[in-house]
């Protein structure tokens, strides 16, 4: 797609653009890739948000051993390594790094940046449950974030500014959702790898450029989708459930692309823009943000209690006609691992093939990963006839 090429060109030049903006006085606000740092607030303060969410690279894991304990999430450990290696330009830019704390693993990101860098880190807690008092606590965190952003930029975040930003971010989320849903009922018009790349592009791209390109992509894909036959699938359909789909981690996609199956839906707690819900413009802006970013969001794998997470995942699997669930987790992300045992059984009971993949971003994992994924797909194609049939 021509639009994707333009987006890639824009992204290649983006670090230099951001550096120029920074030098001209614009504040760059980094945020951890969990989807709990509201971009609306960052934009409303006159700053530019940049997600620090890279992963999948064995070098960063090795480098991380100098800075972090071993027995914590591979992805979370890698973050300080990306900063220290100095090769990922976005990591060197932030004037402030916002880390909403969801578990002990991502707390490591905040701790390691505080300890080993001069980066100004702002952290606030994200509760696991979704009761009104939990929403209040999250809102309290956002209130403090608001003060921090105002202090950083010298600009007051007004309700009016917030509403403008909400409208734009709603547009982003709506477009991402619309593109995703083109995959319902037909072979995907966009590969999962490209679709996730659109999410990763959102981490860095200029928003105006991004929205224009996203609209173009949606228009093109919608026209393509309109010509496709309903429910005529050319291969098995996969739902990818990941604790993290980091920017740079494409191995699962590459493995699936070499098979007859396609990933048609992704659910990632970290690494994708949470797009299923919009901020209700009828609510007080901050309340609306809490409702969208926190209350209505599908729970994370490490949230306690698990609540309705399984039901919502199963609902998506059915909506997208998935036959296989790939559960992709990073090593030592214990919350996700614990959940995988029960959810694996539940998905199988619901008639789906379930395969669990755990990664330490190690190159040697690819062979076993491939065997597991290919087996889960091949299981669907097995004949029921007698094994000793004459050829």
């Amino acid at each position, binding site marked *: 797609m021509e639009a994707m090429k333009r987006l890639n060109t824009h992204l290649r030049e983006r670090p230099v653009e951001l550096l120029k903006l920074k030098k001209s006085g614009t504040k760059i606000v980094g945020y951890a890739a969990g989807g709990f740092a509201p971009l609306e607030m960052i934009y409303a303060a006159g700053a530019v948000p940049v997600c620090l969410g890279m992963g999948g690279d064995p070098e960063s894991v090795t480098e991380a051993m100098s800075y972090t304990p071993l027995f914590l999430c591979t992805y979370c450990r890698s973050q300080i390594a990306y900063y220290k290696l100095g090769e990922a330009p976005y990591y060197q830019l932030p004037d402030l790094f916002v880390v909403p704390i969801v578990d002990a693993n991502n707390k490591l990101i905040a701790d390691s940046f505080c300890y080993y860098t001069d980066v100004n880190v702002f952290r606030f807690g994200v509760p696991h449950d979704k009761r009104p008092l939990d929403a209040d606590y999250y809102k309290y965190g956002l209130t403090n974030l608001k003060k921090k952003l105002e202090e950083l930029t010298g600009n007051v975040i007004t309700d009016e500014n917030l509403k403008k930003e909400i409208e734009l971010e709603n547009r982003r989320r709506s477009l991402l959702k619309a593109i995703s849903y083109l995959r319902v009922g037909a072979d995907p018009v966009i590969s999962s790898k490209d679709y996730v790349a659109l999410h990763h592009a959102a981490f860095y791209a200029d928003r105006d450029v991004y929205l224009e390109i996203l609209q173009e992509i949606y228009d093109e894909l919608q026209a393509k989708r309109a010509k496709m036959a309903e429910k005529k699938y050319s291969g098995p359909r996969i739902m990818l459930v990941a604790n993290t789909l980091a920017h740079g981690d494409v191995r699962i996609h590459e493995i699936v692309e*070499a098979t007859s199956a396609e990933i048609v839906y992704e659910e990632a707690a970290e690494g994708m823009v949470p797009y299923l819900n919009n901020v209700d413009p009828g609510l007080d802006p901050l309340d609306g943000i809490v409702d969208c970013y926190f209350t209505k969001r599908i729970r994370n794998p490490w949230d306690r209690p698990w609540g309705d997470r399984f039901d919502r995942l199963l609902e998506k699997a059915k909506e997208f006609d998935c036959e296989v669930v790939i559960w992709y987790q990073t090593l030592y992300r214990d919350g996700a691992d614990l959940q995988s045992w029960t959810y694996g059984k539940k998905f199988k009971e619901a008639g789906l093939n379930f395969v669990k993949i755990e990664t330490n971003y190690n190159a040697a994992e690819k*062979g076993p990963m491939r*065997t597991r994924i290919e087996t889960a797909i091949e299981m669907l194609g097995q004949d029921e006839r007698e*094994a000793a049939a004459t*050829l």
Partner: protein
Amino acid sequence: MLVAGVDVGAATAKTAIVKDGEFIAYSVMPTGDIVTKAAEDVTVEALKKAGYTLKDLDYVVSTGYARHHVKFTDKAVTEIICHARGANYMMPQVRTIIDIGGQDSKVIHVNEVGRVVDFVMNDKCAAGTGRFLEVMAQVLNTTIDQMGALSLTSKAPSDITSTCTIFAETELISLRAEMTPRVDMIAGLHRAVARRVVLMGQVVGYRDQVAFTGGVAMNQGVKFFLEETLKMPVVVPEQPQIMGALGAALLATETRVGKIYERSQAALKG
């Protein structure tokens, strides 16, 4: 129709020849450094035993970790699907397959027609596999072929808590310093391997009958300790290491299974 199932594993390459649905010949040889050569050599050998050459082959199905690199393959299928089919051909009553190979182990739940219902594989490293036993054999100054029989002579197997090659070696050194009889250490290692794989397979569950396949299945000691740990009889087919290759050959006609390759005629040398 003459079909070859080629299983290129980490330690050995195996080929099974099936003619009109009947298993007629096989061969096994070390994989060595060049997997493509190993695949061809073992197939030529197996065909020779059956009185054929590469040119006579109608179809080739490859499996094992190098399945996508067999130049003359028509189709590549994962070893889990293949093992299930091969074991079902030899032992139709089997419902659980424990497969321990050179560098990996699996527990597979199959139905009455050899269809995989569920599976689990070892994670990350070769702990508790054939490679582990090979290294331990060297540490204990014996050979892998003797280990199994020696393990059965022990009256008091040692408690070896680790199946990591490095940590287990450390444990053995400590036991040796305490003058622990060699056969007890060997038995302890075998019991540790059995316990590790049984624990891994609990996710899938063990249903009667349980078959033991893969190269390590030729080790009577591991079989004994599997039965002791599972408290169930375990059957070992004849030629347990070729179940994958046999299953691959039997899967030639299942068009919806596996990745199809366009086989170049030049890749088939006669």
